[in-house]
Structures are given as structure tokens and as C-alpha cells.
């Protein structure tokens, strides 16, 4: 658990404090009494802080996205407290208790129990679906609301748990939108793309995405030439690049994590493989500004269907600028951590209470619209925000730009990408 959860300790020993301390104590308490008398409302007006659990994988395999999300949560808390805390509770400030799920479900569940004992009113997190299965269930036992920052697996919200809320799109929603948007891009461009190769990592995320893509694309008239699976980590992508080269697909779709995503991009470029487009759904690095910058030419034109803010709302760009000023990379994990916390704060505001039950009810009835995501007001059915949707981004001139849907686009998609 974080330092915020530890009890305050004093280093002064009783004997050392006794002799000179007595007079000093009288003097200090006198001053305190006088000041309290002068401003009688001052101490009473400061309501107790609201304890919010932040449960994320901060170490282990998914430490990077977990830490990114934490940065987002902390920025949101900074904003909420900065504008005077929760108004309906007399300006009470949010106090975060940060817990590390260590990228392991069972650790996450154990941390929920600790957060419960510490008296949190709700929990934000825990980024990964595998961890969320365990933590949402553990939190349900204590009737604690879980506001998911990502944890996109559909099953998390289809188990009848009343305490689970996902602001962003679920996995199924994203894949459906991702395939549709791909088809739109191709149709608008005059259907230059006919064949696809899917490259995916071997866990549930990559395998599931690849299977859905391979199932749904043929119905839309595309030929899936091959589905190539790889391990985590894969140190060398030359074999795969050569296979792609031999098959010569119009498009390469990736479903893998950041490291392999970037390595394959670079290897394709080295082997002179230039597909008409690179497309991914929840792609590991397709909308990561650092990948866009560090990989340069190799990343140019890469398309990704993922969480991103509405570029027409200035607050998104402002948050991004703030993040980058701190020397951090602005990624969708950070964005979704920020949003999850803002959604929770809105619910506490409406609940006018820190009772767990009241916060769950407020979230279930939430119609939060004061955000800068391309969603509209929230409406939860079985814990899933119905209006949530991913957008398609493209790396253009070394930066991530929204290109679809048109309502939110800030640049025109280059499709087929002139990858040369």
C-alpha cells in the first residue's frame, strides 16, 4: 500500500519531550485556543477528506499502463480538489489511497480487502481485465463501487455485479466499431484493400481480437490471408516480416502489446514490406505519441482504433499539454484513469454522501456530460456506459490525430497510407 495509508508517526520520545515541552505546550495550546476563538468556524468548516481507493498494477508485467493510469487519476484528483472539492459535501477533498495489484489478480483482490478496512468509499482501477475479474468480485462483497479505468473484457460487466461501472467502450464494442471503421475507410477510398494478414500475441487479448477479425472480415468482402501468432516477448520479427512479404497483403493488422508492436513495425520497414495500411484495434502502440516520435518514418500512417479524447474539446488538448509539461507521455491509459476519477467525483457530488450504497446508486443513475470524450452523457446498463465509443487515430507527421468518426475528426485519414 502507499505511503498515504501509513499512520503518522512521531520520533519524539516521551522523556525527551517532557521537560522543556510543558511550557511550550501551554504556550502553543494557548495560541491555538486563541486562534480558534478568533475564527470559530475555521476548524469546523473543513470536512473530513473522502477516501478513494486507487488500485492499479504499479509493478510487474503491466506496470507501464498501470502507472500511466495512476498519473491520470492523480491529475483528476488535483483538478477536483483544486476547484474546491465535492461541493455537496461542503467542499470535502478527495484523499487517494494507492494500492499496487502487482499485475496479479489475487494480489489485487487482497488489496481490495485492505482498502475496505481503510474505509474507502469507492475504488478506481485496475486497468487489466484479468485483475478486474478478481477485484470487482472482492469489492462486491464489501459493497464498494468499482469504476473501471479500462479493463475492457465484456464478461466483467455481464456477471450481474451491481458495483461495477465502465466509462469507456468494452472490448466487443471496440472490435465491432474497429472493423466497421476499417470498412468505412476502405469504402471511402474506393476499396483498394482486399487482403489482410493478422499478427497477434498469444494471450486472450490478441487471440480473441484476431479470431473476431478473421471471422468478421470475410463477410465484408476481405480475404484474410493468414493469422500469425507470436509469443511475448518475441525478440526477432524477421521471420514474420518475411512471411508477410511473401504473402504481400494489402493491410497488416496487429493485436499485440507495445514492445512487439513497435518491433514488428520497425522490422517490416527494414525488410521493405510496405502494406497499404497498418491497422490495429486497441493496438499496443498505435496511438502512443512516444512510439510515433521514436519510430519516426516506420510509424507514419499507422491507424489504431482506441480510446482517445474529443479533439474538438479544448480540455483534452489542455490535459495533454499539462501531462507533457511534466515530462510524461500522454497515453490512453492516462486519459482513462483521469476520466474514471472524474466520473466518480461526479457521482459522489450527486450522491451527497460517502455511503457506498449511495455512490453505487448515483453511478447507476449517472448522466455525466461534463467530459471531453467523444461519448455524450453517461448512461449505464449493467455497468457499461452505453454511449462509449473508440475513435480511429492515425500517426500523421509524428503525432497522433483523430481521423474517424467524422464528427470528431481533426485530420483527414490517409488511406491507403503512402508508406514510402
Amino acid at each position, binding site marked *: 500500500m502507499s505511503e498515504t495509508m501509513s499512520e503518522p508517526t512521531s520520533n519524539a520520545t516521551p522523556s525527551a519531550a517532557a521537560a522543556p515541552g510543558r511550557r511550550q505546550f501551554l504556550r502553543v495550546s494557548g495560541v491555538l485556543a486563541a486562534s480558534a476563538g478568533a475564527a470559530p468556524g475555521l476548524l469546523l468548516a473543513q470536512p473530513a477528506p473522502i477516501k478513494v481507493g486507487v488500485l492499479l498494477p504499479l509493478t510487474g508485467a503491466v506496470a507501464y499502463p498501470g502507472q500511466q493510469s495512476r498519473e491520470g487519476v492523480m491529475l483528476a484528483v488535483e483538478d477536483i480538489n483544486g476547484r474546491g472539492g465535492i461541493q455537496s459535501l461542503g467542499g470535502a477533498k478527495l484523499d487517494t489511497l494507492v494500492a499496487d495489484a502487482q499485475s496479479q489478480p489475487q494480489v489485487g483482490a487482497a488489496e481490495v480487502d485492505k482498502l475496505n478496512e481503510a474505509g474507502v468509499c469507492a475504488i478506481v482501477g485496475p486497468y487489466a481485465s484479468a485483475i478486474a475479474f478478481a477485484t470487482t468480485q472482492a469489492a462486491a462483497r464489501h459493497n464498494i463501487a468499482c469504476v473501471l479505468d479500462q479493463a475492457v473484457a465484456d464478461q466483467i460487466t455481464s456477471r450481474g455485479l451491481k458495483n461495477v461501472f465502465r466509462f469507456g467502450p468494452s472490448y466487443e464494442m471496440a472490435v465491432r466499431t474497429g472493423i466497421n471503421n476499417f470498412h468505412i475507410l476502405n469504402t471511402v477510398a474506393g476499396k483498394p484493400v482486399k487482403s489482410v494478414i493478422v499478427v497477434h500475441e498469444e494471450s486472450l487479448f490478441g487471440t480473441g481480437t484476431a479470431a473476431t477479425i478473421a471471422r468478421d472480415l470475410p463477410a465484408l468482402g476481405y480475404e484474410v490471408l493468414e493469422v500469425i501468432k507470436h*509469443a511475448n516477448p518475441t525478440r526477432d520479427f524477421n521471420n514474420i516480416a518475411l512471411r508477410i512479404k511473401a504473402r504481400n497483403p494489402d493491410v497488416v493488422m496487429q493485436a499485440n502489446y507495445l514492445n512487439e508492436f513497435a518491433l514488428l513495425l520497425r522490422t517490416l520497414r527494414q525488410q521493405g514490406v510496405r502494406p497499404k495500411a497498418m491497422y490495429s484495434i486497441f493496438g499496443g502502440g498505435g496511438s502512443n505519441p512516444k512510439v510515433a516520435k521514436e519510430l519516426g518514418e516506420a510509424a507514419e500512417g499507422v491507424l489504431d482504433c482506441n480510446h482517445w479524447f474529443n479533439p474538438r474539446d479544448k480540455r483534452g488538448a489542455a490535459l495533454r499539454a499539462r501531462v507533457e509539461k511534466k515530462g510524461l507521455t500522454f497515453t490512453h491509459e492516462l486519459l482513462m484513469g483521469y476520466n474514471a476519477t472524474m466520473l466518480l467525483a461526479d457521482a459522489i457530488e450527486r450522491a451527497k454522501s460517502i455511503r457506498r450504497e449511495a455512490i453505487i446508486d448515483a453511478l447507476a443513475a449517472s448522466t455525466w456530460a461534463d467530459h471531453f470524450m467523444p461519448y455524450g452523457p453517461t448512461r449505464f446498463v449493467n455497468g457499461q456506459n452505453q454511449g462509449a465509443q473508440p475513435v480511429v487515430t492515425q500517426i500523421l507527421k509524428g503525432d497522433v490525430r483523430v481521423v474517424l468518426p467524422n464528427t470528431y475528426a481533426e485530420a483527414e485519414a490517409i488511406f491507403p497510407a503512402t508508406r514510402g
Partner: protein
Amino acid sequence: MIDSALIGAALWPALVNGLTMGAIYALIALGLTLIYGVLHIINFAHGSLLMVALYAVLVLFERLGIDPYAALVVVVPGMFGIGYVLQRFVINPARHGRDENTLLVTLGLSIVIENLASHFFKTDTRQIETAYTFMMVDLAGAVISMPRLLAFAGALASCLALAVLMRSTDLGRAIRAVAREAQGARVVGIDVDHVFAMSFAIGLACLGAAACFLLPTYYVSPQVGHGFVLIAFTVVVLGGMGSFTGSLVGGLLVGVIESLGGLLLGESLGQIGVFVIFIVILLFRPAGLFGQRT
């Protein structure tokens, strides 16, 4: 699913790729086998120390604009120094004459180093782009990137340099003497503690070289070492614990098997190939390919 024409065309490039990757494995394993051969300890911090070297190359490149290959002259001596100090003042004092203590110390070190890296560099994945990242060389039909080819040459040169050092210098002779019989070496006047520290330092210098050759085609993150440490252990056991020739041959073999396995069985299943060969060799040659029976 995999047609034979495709495999036929990709066989030679896959072989070349396997050899170039294998040379890097060999260099990493060389450090590990030297440390094992002399100190009889398994250095669990080997992967984390490789990560340290990779970050050093990254920082030199990003902050000072030093080319990864030019960084060799800084990173190799730097890692050598770190190795000497670590062994002399951390690992050796904590040993108290028991090998299992060393095991725990190196394990602890790896955790500390990884957490420090997460703190200072964040858990982000970083890569660098140099002028020659996308420079390609055609080797009789196998198109291979320039940095990979340089890595192959560099790794082989490093192995050769180490072999010369071990055979023809006083230090090499002392290391070999200590490896064989530490007590006896002490009796004839060799400063055994110094030799221990020098061996550890040379082992880490190999990592420094590997990092300089690796980063132009790879990436670095606090967890990057995990992907190499298992492979390096496999190479060391396969080649024979403590054998330099074994490390070199083992590394190249593992690289080629991994690459061909990936080609023939798919990149996911292909990784099995390495471990199947590993088990087969251990069944028939328990001491590894070039290991000596004790």
C-alpha cells in the same frame, strides 16, 4: 497452412537471422558462464544488469548524442567497474562462504535494480532511431539490417577477444587457475578475491558490449532482461557450464533453432524447439555440449 515454397524461400534468411540473433545470445551467455565457471555462482541479476547497460546506451545517445557503437568505449569499462565494485563490496562480503547466500544476493540485486529503473526511467519502453537503423545489406538473398550484421561481427569479435584474454594473459591464467582450484591458486600467491571480482567485472563488460550492439535494433524497458536471461541460462547449460566455446556454439545454435522453429512451427510454438533440443542434449550429454564432467 504453411506452404513449402514459402518455407524454401525463407530458409536462408531465417538461418542468417538466427545466426545474428544467436551471436548476441552468445555474448550475453558468455558473461554468465564466466561468472559461473569462476565463482560457481548463478548470477540472477544478469538480466537486470543487461538492462542497466541498455539504459546507459540510451542515455548516452539521447542526452549526449553518442552513437551506440561509440558508446562501447564508455559502457564496456563502465559495466566492468560496476561489476568489480558489486562483486568486491556487495556480493563477496554477503557470501559468508555459502553459495546459496550469493544466489539470494543476486536475486535481491535484480529486484532492487529493476525497481530503481522503474523509478528513474518509468516503466516505459524506449527505442532509438539512428541513421543506419533502416540500412539493409543483401547477403546472397537474405536481406538483413546493418545493425544486426554489425552486432554479429561485434559479438564474435568480443568472444575472440575474451578467448585471447583467457589464453594469453596473466589475468586469464589466474582466472583459469582460480576456476579450477581456488585454494591452490591462493597457495601459489594469486589474489583470489581480486580474480573473483575481475571475473565478475569481465562478465558484466560482455553485457555492456551486448547492450551497445543490441539497442540499435531492439528496445529497452525495466523488464527487458527477462526476455534474455532465460535464453542465456539455456545457452550456458546447453553449451556446458563454464565453457566459452560452449557458450558461443550454444548461443548460435539457440538462435538458429529459434529462428527455424519460428519459421516451421510458427513464432508461438516455435519457441518449443529450443527447449526440446535442450532436453535431448541434456539426456545424452548431461554436462552440455562442451562441458567437462566433474
